[in-house]
């Protein structure tokens, strides 16, 4: 059964002039770690705010644990945990006081659900008397997760939990989510980092309020098997220009130190590229056929979508 069911959700801002969500539909299975991946402004936060009953959709339906986000909002608020993208706990209360406050608001106690947060809380417990505003980014993250978990939610919504967190803390954070998943909590998480997609059971690529693709990471990449080549030459700027000219080249975009190129004709791509670049006067040419990453897929889908 789907724990989160989203059907044709639509949301506009500024009297309809800005389209934030354009008929979005998807299901999140029970106990799944589901990732919403997309750039800033894709509509991730709007979607989260609708699912956590903070925002009314302009059209469509959505259910969380079988409850309607518009009609059953008070029931939903008891069973979801939400961690907004911006740190939203009381900066002038200590770790301990924040946790206690959010426990009491849900009519429960820290002791009762301590087992849920234990392995996260022990990391920040030495600083429990410290005011939340004085914590480091990683510690704030952990505290926010504890507060979102303290009422034993069925579904956890995490809006860009790793944005602005150092790589080590990011990895730790995903490890924590894995452990929470084993407790049967359904987790919906959004991130602008493509590399975090591999940590999710299934992902949805979202751009400009539309879901471009939704599946497991390997299936998405497999479906978009491309003739992808990593190209490099000594004059990078000229290379970028020249690779945009021929009709045979489907797409070309800068990717780190190299230029990633896809071709319309699958055969002899390497030879074609080397020939073409030699003719246009490049030297130090390297062309490798590579397997696409999620980032390549995303860029391809984005270009198609435009």
């Amino acid at each position, binding site marked *: 059964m789907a724990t989160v069911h989203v059907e044709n959700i639509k949301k506009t801002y500024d009297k309809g002039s800005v389209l934030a969500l354009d008929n979005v539909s998807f299901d999140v299975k029970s106990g799944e770690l589901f990732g919403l991946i997309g750039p800033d402004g894709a509509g991730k936060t709007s979607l989260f705010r609708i699912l956590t009953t903070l925002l009314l959709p302009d059209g469509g339906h959505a259910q969380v644990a079988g409850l309607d986000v518009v009609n059953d909002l008070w029931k939903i*608020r008891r069973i*979801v945990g939400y961690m*907004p993208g911006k740190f939203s*706990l009381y900066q002038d*209360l200590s770790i301990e*006081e924040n946790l206690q406050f959010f426990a*009491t*608001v*849900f*009519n429960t106690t820290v002791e009762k659900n301590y087992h849920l947060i234990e392995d996260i809380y022990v990391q920040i417990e030495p600083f429990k008397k410290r005011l939340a505003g004085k914590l480091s980014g990683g510690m704030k993250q952990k505290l926010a997760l504890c507060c979102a978990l303290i009422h034993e939610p069925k579904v956890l919504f995490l809006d860009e939990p790793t944005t602005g967190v150092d790589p080590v803390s990011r990895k730790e954070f995903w490890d924590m989510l894995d452990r929470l998943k084993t407790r049967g909590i359904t987790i919906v998480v959004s991130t602008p980092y493509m590399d975090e997609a591999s940590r999710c059971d299934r992902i949805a690529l979202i751009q400009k309020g539309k879901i471009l693709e939704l599946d497991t990471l390997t299936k998405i990449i497999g479906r978009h098997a491309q003739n992808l080549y990593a190209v490099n030459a000594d004059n990078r700027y000229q290379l970028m220009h020249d690779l945009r000219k021929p009709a045979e080249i489907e797409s070309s975009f800068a990717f780190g130190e190299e230029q990633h190129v896809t071709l319309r004709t699958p055969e002899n791509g390497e030879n074609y590229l080397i020939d073409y670049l030699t003719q246009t006067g490049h030297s130090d040419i390297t062309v490798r056929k590579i397997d696409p990453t999620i980032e390549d897929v995303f860029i391809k889908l984005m270009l198609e979508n435009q």
Partner: protein
Amino acid sequence: MNNLFFLLQKEFRQIFRNPTILRMILLMPIIQLIVIPLAADYEIKQISISVVDQDHSPYARKLVQKLTASGYFQLVEYTQSYAQATQTVGDGKTDLILTIPPHFERDLIKLNKGQLYLAADAVNGVRAGLGTAYASQMIGDFNREIREEWMLLPKFNEIPQIEITSANWFNQHFDYHLFMVPGIMAILVTMVGAFLTALNIVAEKEVGTIEQINVTPLKKHEFILGKLIPFWVLGMVSITLGMLIAFVVFSILPVGSYLTVYVFSAVYLLGVLGIGLLISTFADTQQQATLFAFFCMMVFILLGGLYTPIESMPDWAQWLTKANPPAYFIKVIRAVYIKGSTFTDLLPDFFAMVGFAILFNGLAVLNYRKRST
């Protein structure tokens, strides 16, 4: 109810942890109540006067002596040239020029009348008005003294005279503090009630904590009560502090009952908390709230009768003050403190305050509903 208790616990914890709020509540009343009544005094003393004496007679000297001995005037210049005196006015060093023309004494005795010329620097209208009024009164006195001196023994009053004797009721000694201190107390309660509440709620919006609160099962009314109750309590604390300072520093005690003061404060606070709540529904940042509060405060004070009496405002402005909650509270506090008015005397004001409380809280709730979609 349980939730409300935890909210209040949280709120008070935050308030006691916030040095700015504590300072506002504890130090602000002390400073405002002590400094403002002492500094902003309406009674104008030390009016600078230039005397252009072109007569140099004993009477002229007597007149000047009378003026300077009163304590109201300070002689800054004694000259023979009117031009020089106007120059002193131009320099801003004197407020008033009294010109005693040549043959003043002679004319007074021989022709039975003399002329004096009084000129005032009217850049500061209040000083000019009061200065000429004081001076005219003293010259009048001087005139009478001379008449008495010459008539020596008036056997009978040839000219019927009306003499006005005035008595000040309630504030016999015309003590400015007695008038000002209760008014400032009213303003303090307004500031604590309206603006600290507004800023506090807007801060939750700005920091984003309201987002986290909104996904909890906490009901709206619990959240709002959790905000209003602490500031209601703080408002009552600040009026108590105000009364304490009024007694300790100025020995001012209410002629009426403390209970009346508290009952009115309690109801008035509900109204100003409503104003605070209303501001918080349309301000998204503390900066917006502060600017709006600043604007409100100007209106509250200037149209509230704190400095300028409402009765002397033009008709349209008097109507405006009827929509200004602090005007009622300032009036009530003064009435209880100075006149000893009882609750029943002030019943119309009580109803007005109840009305304001319902109006502002109602508007806040309506506006909140409208914006929450």
